[in-house]
């Protein structure tokens, strides 16, 4: 036959606990015990509260630009929940819930947005890389981290998070392609929230699904409801197994939505309809989880009130720790450029000057009459 089929495929969409409270108990079987469910709900609530507090901190000049995570908490949290504690989390900047679950202290993320690199000094034993500012670049690091584990024969994998916008960058493609062709144990978790600042998803990907990005690499790919803790847990768990056992990557499109502005520097009303936001408010992962917990008789209003108080205390404590840290010393501008500073940086460090005359006698350079080293 001169015209034959060269390739044929299908992509699945997974949903377990939907926006109407429909719950597929069979698919959910064994995924999340009730105790954990409570812990996860509490965790999301704390994260949500952090967003509110951070917003106010920014508005009152106590913090720089901050990107709210509001509405997207379920995705990174479910992933962090099902992964091993030694699997790499390679985030972008809307993964507070997952990072905190892993154990990153809340004040680290606050410090980052307060313009302080100490917020990135995440203890290595947490296996989290710092928030990534240049979009689309960190997935390559995830591929390298996973590669290192494979090279060493360890069963560690890497899970990397990014947005719909990030999938437009060339580095996204290269990361997916390296992982697929070199058989690297990576989970690529795209949080499709339909917007990249003001640019709608169709400008980033006009295909029917974002999930099909993975087909380009012969990678297993799947779409799930990103506001559904169970669905994300299920697909990430399967992807992790595929990575751990077969050293094969997976591409996951988690469909979600950011309920807030892009960052505190943004005003989303300029480019999107309130109707759309309202639609997604109804799909909030917290609401549906609370609904399920109530249905299961695990939750009630007084517990909720208690939880909110707890969240306030937690977040207030983190803010206090972040704001209470001593100001960074000016020497910090220099000290981490290299493991060992070269003479030139040492001189700049010592004198705080770059002009050669100013570098001749320490901090308050005298007006030396003679030139350099002669």
């Amino acid at each position: 036959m001169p015209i034959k089929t060269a390739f044929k495929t299908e992509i699945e969409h997974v949903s377990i606990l939907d926006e109407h409270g429909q719950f597929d108990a069979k698919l959910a079987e064994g995924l999340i015990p009730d105790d954990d469910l409570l812990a996860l709900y509490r965790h999301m609530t704390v994260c949500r509260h952090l967003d509110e507090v951070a917003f106010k901190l920014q508005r009152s000049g106590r913090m720089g630009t901050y990107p709210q995570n509001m509405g997207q908490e379920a995705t990174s949290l479910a992933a962090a929940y099902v992964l091993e504690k030694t699997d790499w989390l390679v985030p972008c900047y809307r993964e507070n819930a997952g990072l905190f679950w892993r154990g990153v202290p809340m004040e680290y993320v606050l410090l980052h947005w307060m313009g302080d690199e100490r917020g990135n000094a995440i203890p290595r034993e947490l296996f989290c890389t710092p928030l990534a500012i240049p979009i689309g670049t960190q997935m390559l690091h995830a591929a390298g981290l996973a590669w290192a584990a494979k090279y060493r024969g360890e069963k560690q994998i890497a899970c990397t998070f990014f947005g719909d916008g990030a999938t437009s960058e060339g580095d996204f493609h290269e990361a997916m392609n390296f992982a697929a062709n070199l058989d690297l144990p990576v989970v690529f978790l795209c949080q499709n929230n339909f917007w990249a600042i003001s640019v709608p998803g169709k400008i980033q990907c006009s295909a029917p699904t974002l999930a099909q990005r993975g087909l380009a690499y012969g990678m297993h790919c799947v779409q799930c409801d990103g506001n559904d803790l169970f669905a994300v847990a299920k697909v990430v768990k399967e992807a992790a197994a595929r990575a751990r056992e077969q050293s094969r990557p997976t591409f996951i499109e988690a469909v979600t939505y950011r309920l807030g502005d892009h960052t505190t520097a943004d005003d989303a009303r300029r480019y999107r309809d309130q109707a759309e936001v309202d639609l997604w408010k109804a799909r909030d992962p917290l609401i549906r989880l609370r609904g399920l917990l109530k249905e299961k008789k695990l939750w009630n209003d007084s517990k909720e009130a208690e939880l909110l108080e707890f969240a306030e205390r937690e977040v207030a404590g983190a803010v206090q720790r972040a704001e209470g840290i001593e100001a960074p010393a000016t020497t910090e501008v220099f000290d981490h450029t290299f493991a060992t500073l070269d003479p030139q940086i040492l001189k700049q460090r010592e004198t705080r000057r770059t002009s050669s005359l100013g570098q001749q006698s320490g901090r308050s350079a005298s007006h030396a009459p003679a030139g350099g080293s002669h």
Partner: protein
Amino acid sequence: MANLTLVQAINLALVQEMERDDRIILLGEDVGLNGGVFRVTEGLHKRFGGHRVVDSPLAESGIIGTAIGLAMAGLRPIPEIQFEGFLGPAYDQLCSHAARMRTRTRGAFTVPMTVRVPVGGGIHAPELHSDSPEAIYAHQPGMKVVMPASPYDAKGLLLSAIRDPDPVIFFEPKRIYRAFREEVPEDEYTIPIGKARVVCEGDELTMISWGASVIQCMQAIEKSGRSVELIDLRTIYPFDMEAVAASVSKTGRAVVVHEAPRTCGFGAEIATRIMEECFLSLEAPVQRVTGFDTIMPYYKLELEYLPETERIGLAVEETLAY
């Protein structure tokens, strides 16, 4: 004549030039409905339509690469890169193609494109939103590099850049996007690429700077009480060595100020050229007041990094005392 910020002056220049020349297309991340994250393209989408003010995918190499194609076809694309820290992914298209196309094809294809890029520190922004990579592109033959330091200049230089038959990177110092206003004529005027501006005259020392640092220089000069001639370079490549040499020949002393790291910053080029051309007039070594040879820090420490009034003032004193 209106009293405009730098953002408004650029917006005005874009509006007027787009009215005049329908070969102009703006493209970039969030330049459309949102008017750009700094609102420089505010209102243009509404005025000129989505076919001329195009929200692109989030891909800097793609923005520059397609703009090169648009330009090769005879259009006048004006891509915006959202922050100078995100020029990196476009480095290859800029340096391997945009800058080389005319030479490569002996003029059969050219790239008349103006790449708009906010630049520099001092606005409490996140990482990679505060760098100063002008020397990188000045080192690339075939590329012009412009950086205005005032609303008036911004409009006049942008028109020149857009009309230039070769690629121009137009750096917009974000620290002074809204820091002050200036009278900017409604009428069309251009400021030639390659010509510096003498901000104030003086005969004891020549200070050379560009972009937002010019403001710090002005403050330092005022504080110093000395007779310093301040030159705002306006164009980084090709830079106005004639103006610099004329001034240093007169003063015999020079200080260069920029935000970028010192090593291989554009200050090195200027200092060397001064030494080359004014050797016998030089009374003191040319001094560089710049960023350190370290990574631009997160914002808590950014003012420790940037060349501020005090550091500039000290260099002036030391150079005069030499």
